[in-house]
């Protein structure tokens, strides 16, 4: 078993954003996480990725507890995430972001990064261009500042950053939202490709049902902070309860 999250609960004041959430993900598996707005999907991802510390819950990843670790510690363990809303980071190029993503795997606490000062990163650049940027079609804009890119391309850059850290557990928060359908399909294909090549476990929060259906091996449905259904994509679409709370049918 790769990831076993159970009983994850977090509340903000009176709001219980995630309530006893449980989810398992195997290596090489893409699990879709769907649910209405405010269901707690992003908050759950935040709990797994070290952004929030849940009030209760455990998340075992290859035998280690993830909860309580900082994002940088998690990245060193191979747990990477992307963001629902990408930041525009001025002055940084696409390649810079990818390099940052690759760099977080190294432990910097000892000040060893000062050695970078004397190190050429030409080899790293080539590796990133070839193995990370090219599959995402970001090669041609590698030296462009990211704020000059479209929203869709910037989301691809955020994914590239996460992938550059060579993750084994990838948490994607709405990677396709806001993209054109062409961009969305390319992104979904990239996610599948990464899974195929690296065998990582993927949790993908997504609203676009066609992408979820074509990409995910399994789907979990969240509503009001809890999991209300879990099954294969076709089963999810057939379930009357899910259709009622999420797909908007009476």
């Amino acid at each position, binding site marked *: 078993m790769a990831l076993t999250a159970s009983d994850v609960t977090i509340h903000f004041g009176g709001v219980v954003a995630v309530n006893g959430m449980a989810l398992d993900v195997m290596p090489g598996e893409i699990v879709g996480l769907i649910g209405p707005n405010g269901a707690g999907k992003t908050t759950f991802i935040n709990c797994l990725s070290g952004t929030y510390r849940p009030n209760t819950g455990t998340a075992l990843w290859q035998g280690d507890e993830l909860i309580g670790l900082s994002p940088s510690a998690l990245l060193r363990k191979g747990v990477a995430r992307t963001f629902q809303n990408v930041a525009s980071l001025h*002055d940084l190029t696409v390649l810079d972001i990818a390099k*940052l993503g690759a760099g*977080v795997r190294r432990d910097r606490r000892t000040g060893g990064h000062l050695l*970078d*000062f004397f190190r050429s*990163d030409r080899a790293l650049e080539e590796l990133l261009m070839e193995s990370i940027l090219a599959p995402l079609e970001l090669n041609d804009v590698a030296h462009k500042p990211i704020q000059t890119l479209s929203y869709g391309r910037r989301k691809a850059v955020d994914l590239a950053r996460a992938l550059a850290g060579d993750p084994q557990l990838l948490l994607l928060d709405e990677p396709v939202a806001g993209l054109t359908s062409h961009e969305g399909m390319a992104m979904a294909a990239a996610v599948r490709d990464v899974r195929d090549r690296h065998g990582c476990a993927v949790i993908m929060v997504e609203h676009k049902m066609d992408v979820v259906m074509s990409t995910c091996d399994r789907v979990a449905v969240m509503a009001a902070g809890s999991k209300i259904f879990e099954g294969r994509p076709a089963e999810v679409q057939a379930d009357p309860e899910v259709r009622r709370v999420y797909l908007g049918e009476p």
Partner: protein
Amino acid sequence: MSTRHIAIAIGVAVVMAVLAVVLGRYGAYLVNAVAIAAIGALSLNLLIGYCGQISFAQGALLGVGAYTAGNLGNAGLDGAVAILGAGVLGALVSALIGLPAMRLRGLYFAIATLAAQAILEYLFKILDPLTNGVSGLVIKPPSIFGIPMTSDESLVLPSLVLLVIAWLVVSRLLRTDLGRAFLVVRESEIVAKGMGIDVGHTKLWAFLIGGFIAGMAGALIGFANRLASPEAFTLDLSADYIAMIIIGGLGTWPGPIIGAAFVVLLPEVIQRVGEAAGISDILSALRELAFGLLIILFLIFEPRGLTALLSRIKLRRIGVVPPAGLRATGEGSQSPEGRSR
């Protein structure tokens, strides 16, 4: 750091050296003043322009460098050792100044640095054995690598060498993971944290490196003035350095040098014009006003300073539209509204 950067930095230093030789004593004095100010501005630009940590304590930090180098030099150490020692103490004091940044952000941290500035000014006055109190520490002319530095002319060379080194070190630094982390921390600490950047650590390094450079700049100020006194390193001086990096262009590569030249030379020009017209008293009073006004105007209309202005003119001349990248720097641009007096 590209070969282009190396060529430009060395070219600028050579031009300045030639000017110092051609223009005689006064020219050497001005070149020296610009070079030293530029080193100090590079350090502050690293902190504010690239890492987004607004500091009003630069004046005092330069003072730490001046007093340290003064004491080490007076004790008979070589000037080069004294300058390095000033860098080390500058780095340590800067890290202390930066400690509140582990908890505070933006303007809250900026206010904490005001306190640091006040405390250091007070220490300069009371640490008598080291600072000689309000009358100030007289600094003997040092020898650097055995060569006596008895005049502004002789100090030009070490100042320019340090300027080139500091300039290139900063630009190389920005091409490392640490430098890239500075830029992300400047834009958003939350994003930086989510990306796995250790924010506290990143800031600490910005303070250490910035402080080291500032300490060395302070040492040169001490050697040039032959005196380190409390009233030379007040908040006014911090404000001058903030003016330099804003006018030159926050977070730009040539900004600190352009800004330093502007802030050092403008008063001299005004002075000469004033003397010629017989109204120097009025004009020198206008100096502070002019800088305050310029800071506000640049922050509103051209947050990337003279650097952006110049590159825009150049681009227009060769028929290129200015890139969208010339813009305000997130937290870094929320700088002081004018000079605190």
